[in-house]
Structure formats: structure tokens, C-alpha cells
């Protein structure tokens, strides 16, 4: 079974600075998808960024980018120019593209605090 590990329960960063959240995963599959979701205090999970494993190019979405290392099974999220609104729980998630697999497997989450 696939597992996702986020080794940083909490992280903090000064406003306008850059922070990197770590995620590793375990799988024997070659084709899959990886996601970062944000969960603010309102509880509603919001997709931040998505990476397809067959694509070597790292995904970027404005201030958010990933460092996808397939061989190392690592998928870190970099947030540039941190803003107060970035404060939230961040979850890394894995999805298999195989038949019969319709679930996201989430990590334990990293709580990100932005210091003004």
C-alpha cells in the first residue's frame, strides 16, 4: 500500500520569505499523481498544486512550486514571498492512476505559520 510521510509537523516563516515543506512517499508504481492541498482554519481543503509523475518538469503555480524527485520519491513544496493568507495546514497526497484506485492517500500534514 502507498504511504505518504510529512516529517515536519510545524513550520514557520517570516512574511515575504521563502519556505519549503517536505513530503516523501512510498510506492511501487511508475505512473501516479502527487498533490499539495491547503486546509485553512475554515476547514475547506483547497488544491495548491498537482504533479504528474511521468512529467519531469516541476509544476509551478504562481508563488508555489514543487521539487519532484521521482527516484528519491520526494515531493517538496516551495512557497515564495510568503503571505499571511498562506497560513494553514498543508497536506501532501498521492493518487494511483491504476485501475480500481480512486482514492487520495494523504500525509499527516504540516502546520505553516506566517510571522508578520
Amino acid at each position, binding site marked *: 500500500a502507498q504511504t505518504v510521510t510529512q516529517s515536519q509537523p510545524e513550520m514557520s516563516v517570516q512574511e515575504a520569505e521563502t519556505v519549503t515543506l517536505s513530503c516523501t512517499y512510498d510506492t511501487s508504481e511508475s505512473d501516479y499523481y502527487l498533490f499539495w492541498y491547503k486546509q485553512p482554519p475554515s476547514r475547506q481543503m483547497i488544491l495548491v498544486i498537482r504533479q504528474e509523475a511521468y512529467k519531469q518538469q516541476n509544476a509551478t503555480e504562481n508563488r508555489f512550486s514543487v521539487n519532484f524527485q521521482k527516484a528519491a520519491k520526494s515531493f517538496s513544496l516551495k512557497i515564495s514571498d510568503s503571505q499571511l493568507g498562506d497560513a494553514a495546514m498543508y497536506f501532501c*497526497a498521492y493518487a494511483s*492512476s491504476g485501475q480500481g484506485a*480512486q*482514492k*487520495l*492517500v494523504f500525509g499527516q500534514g504540516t502546520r505553516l505559520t506566517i510571522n508578520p
Partner: protein
Amino acid sequence: DAGVTQSPTHLIKTRGQQVTLRCSPKSGHDTVSWYQQALGQGPQFIFQYYEEEERQRGNFPDRFSGHQFPNYSSELNVNALLLGDSALYLCASSLGRTGWLRRQYFGPGTRLTVT
């Protein structure tokens, strides 16, 4: 354009009781997934419904059951509630058989407390 809605927002139940949680997907979406998120944990997949059928089920006992209606809304039922069922229950919707691989839209969740 209405997003994913869930009801109720909060509820408190007693051990042994039964509960029904409801989810309306984002307009145009036909696939609904349910997740359980215990306090301080990441969400865990319960099951997914597409075209009114359960496509896949996570590692949850038969006390957890669900249903999808022709309008694509969905219910999650939990029987014989245990204290350990206390959690935030999240509903997520997507479009088509593989839309969930592109993006799922989550609702705000239902906070269930079992006493």
C-alpha cells in the same frame, strides 16, 4: 456557481446511535468521495461514488455505508457509532471517471462528535 456543500455543519451523537451526513457536489460534478479526518491527522478515504455506484472503498468497517442519488448528491451513513468515529467528515466532488485525478473540490466538512 455553488461549490460543494455539506450538512449539517456540526452534530453530536451518543455511542450506538446512527448518523446520516449529506453532500451536494459542485454544479456539474458527478463523482463524490468521502473522507474521514481525525483531529490532527490527514484525511482517510472512505469510499467514492460514481453513477450511483460505489467504485472503491477504503479500510472502513461495514458500519460505514453510502448512497448516491440520481442528482449526484450523496449520503454517508454510520451505524452503531463509536467514540473513535468522532472526526471531521469531508466530501469531495469531481467530474467524470478520472476527473478526481485532476482536481477534487472539497466541502467544508461535517464535524461529528460521539459522546
